[in-house]
């Protein structure tokens, strides 16, 4: 992703992940909006449902893809010296990798 010859792939991934995240967000806000004084039991039960778990994990993956393309675009525009840009993007990639592992741990850990 990115650094290839064509930006079309990034463009598509950015849009698909955006649409998925928007849908997931609406669904989450609808749940939070309709449950007043949310407690642990309700929250746990909601997130524990297989469908919610799966769609949440997919939302996390979409978020990481979306963030990578966005940060890559910003870095390409504003960080001109290659050493600085590539170091920054390397750090971002490591961070996103950690978030991915962390996300797996969260989703399978409860």
């Amino acid at each position, binding site marked *: 992703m990115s650094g290839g010859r064509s930006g079309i792939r990034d463009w598509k991934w950015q849009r698909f992940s955006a649409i998925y995240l*928007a849908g997931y967000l609406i669904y989450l806000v609808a749940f939070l909006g309709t449950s007043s004084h949310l407690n*642990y*039991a309700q929250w746990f039960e909601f997130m524990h449902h297989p469908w919610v778990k799966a769609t949440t994990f997919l939302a996390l993956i979409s978020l*990481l893809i979306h963030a990578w393309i966005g940060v890559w675009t910003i870095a390409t525009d504003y960080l001109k010296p290659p050493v600085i840009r590539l170091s920054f993007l390397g750090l971002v990639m490591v961070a996103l990798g950690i978030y991915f592992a*962390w996300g797996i741990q969260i989703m399978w850990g*409860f």
Partner: protein
Amino acid sequence: MLIDKRPINKNPLSIHLPITALASIKHRISGFVLFLAIPLLLWALQQSLASPSGFELVCSFFASYWMKLVIWLSLASLGLHCLLGLRHLLMDIHIADSLKSARFSAWLSLILGALLAIWLAFYIGSQV
């Protein structure tokens, strides 16, 4: 080698941005804020699901003044980012992609984003 002698304006604040450019830069800034908020989101998700005491911990942590400010910034950024993102998705399918309507939708997204930010400030501020 030619030496470039064109004048350079080094003060970005003196540049008057067209509204569409302002929308674009705000889309980027809000997106970067959201990128920075990812670890906080993951931490809150993990703790809130781990145990009832973890859930309480997240609630009390977010009840502090400074964390409320962080939550407000994150949610206001999320709202604005979604509005500006929706604007782009509509433009992709050729809805409101003329210069005139792009200016209008830029204004509309920024105003709605600002109204949402004001509402969030009151809403988050009123939570105990």
